[in-house]
């Protein structure tokens, strides 16, 4: 498919109800970190954008939300597809972005250059949508914090070693900080800035 035809393809076939459905997955995921939500809507997003990541873009991005794309994504059909379907401007500066789409592990480095909000307006921070290889097996991570009864263990393949220390740095900024949505194909899992992450299985459960 030519790049232009690819940009025009897909999207929500039923924008009103599809975006509501995807938003509810995100709301449930953000309020219950670590729960895996599955996007059942085919949005025909261009690779390397995953289906869940594409659906997040369609549900939340518009002309008010500058989007930053990691280089591999920026070179794909993703910028045109996002521009056509959402109207969101694609920006070069990470700090201008309300949403950032990236692929792990290659592009994961400190969140420091993204918008992290201010102490007065901590909500003005970038939401990072990070595509990983899998959310069902791999390195076990134990999550705790608001939204989680006691503790929950998730398994993620494809996050770099350094992610835990990046996340701890992000946690330390609270109430400032970035929020993360991990995606793997049609699955997604939310990590709001309040979530504490420890390597390994839950010890006491």
């Amino acid at each position, binding site marked *: 498919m030519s790049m232009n035809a690819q940009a025009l393809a897909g999207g929500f076939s039923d924008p009103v109800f599809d975006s509501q459905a995807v938003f509810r997955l995100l709301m449930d995921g953000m309020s219950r970190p670590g729960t895996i939500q599955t996007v059942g809507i085919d949005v025909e997003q261009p690779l390397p954008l995953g289906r869940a990541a594409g659906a997040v873009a369609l549900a*939340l991005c518009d002309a008010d939300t500058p989007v930053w794309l990691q280089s591999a994504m920026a070179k794909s059909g993703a910028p045109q597809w996002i521009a056509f379907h959402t109207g969101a401007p694609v920006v070069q500066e990470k700090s201008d972005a309300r949403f950032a789409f990236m692929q792990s592990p290659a592009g994961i480095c400190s969140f420091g250059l993204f918008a992290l909000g201010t102490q007065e307006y901590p909500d003005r921070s970038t939401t990072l949508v990070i595509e990983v290889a899998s959310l069902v097996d791999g390195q076990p991570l134990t999550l705790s914090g608001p939204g989680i009864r006691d503790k929950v263990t998730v398994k993620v393949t494809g996050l770099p070693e350094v992610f835990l220390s990046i996340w701890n740095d992000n946690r330390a900024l609270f109430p400032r900080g970035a929020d993360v949505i991990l995606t793997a194909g049609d699955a997604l899992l939310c990590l709001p800035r309040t979530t504490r992450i420890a390597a390994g299985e839950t010890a006491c459960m």
Partner: protein
Amino acid sequence: MSPEVPSDSGLATYNFAYLDEQTKRMIRRAILKAIAIPGYQVPFASREMPMPYGWGTGGVQVTASIIGPQDVLKVIDQGADDTTNAVSIRAFFQKVANVAVTTHTKDATIIQTRHRIPEQPLAEGQVLVYQVPIPEPLRFLEPRETETRKMHALEEYGLMHVKLYEDIAHNGRISKTYAYPVKVAGRYVMDPSPTPKFDNPKMHMSDALQLFGAGREKRIYAIPPHTEVVSLDFEDHPFEIQSFDKPCALCGAENVYLDEVILDDQGGRMFVCSDTDHCEDRRDHGHAGAMLGRQEAAE
């Protein structure tokens, strides 16, 4: 655009759930950030709604942005399903979103509330949407938004403790009985909207997601499920909830919040459950209070 309202609603003028899609996206983004920063008030571009400020425009906008065709909506006003505000908001969503409605707490997926939390504990997956008049807990202590924002930024809540202390100095106890300030997840001091302080403990570690919408003041905030919500107090003046001398006069329930009903001009009165669904459910299950007409229902 695709079919914007269910085809059998007979309405072609409004988008599903009244708000346009760009407005919903804006509110949805605010809700996600609110959940990520529990207790922090996220500014949002509140829209004019077809009802006056003070009638729940904030809660209505939040509900309109999250509701889908599968949802079952319950609306309460001071605990009651059958008072003006509850009836009109319920009818509004039946009209513009064509959703199922209920009065039963356990059947609802979204409960929009004005100033009560249902007596029945909320379950995983339910969403409680509060209508909030003044979202800023520090507003009556400090009128300048620039200052209250700085106080939240610096986690400087001394003024609130001084207010509670002055209450004790003047009255011998903390006299605030509603909109009693809470601290969420150990960080932000939050106004739980004018719910009676009786309901504050229900917010702590709730299984349900709690969303707050203030339309006139243009703020959205949230408490995720399983989140610590602590009512502010002092070691020697611990937080206490209201208690009632008698059980509900209709269903005999104890440890619930009661409303006073004036019966005549001779001083006659009764105290009944503020949560009408809870009261009806108990009566259906054979419970009876002292003033319930059907004596045969008493056991």
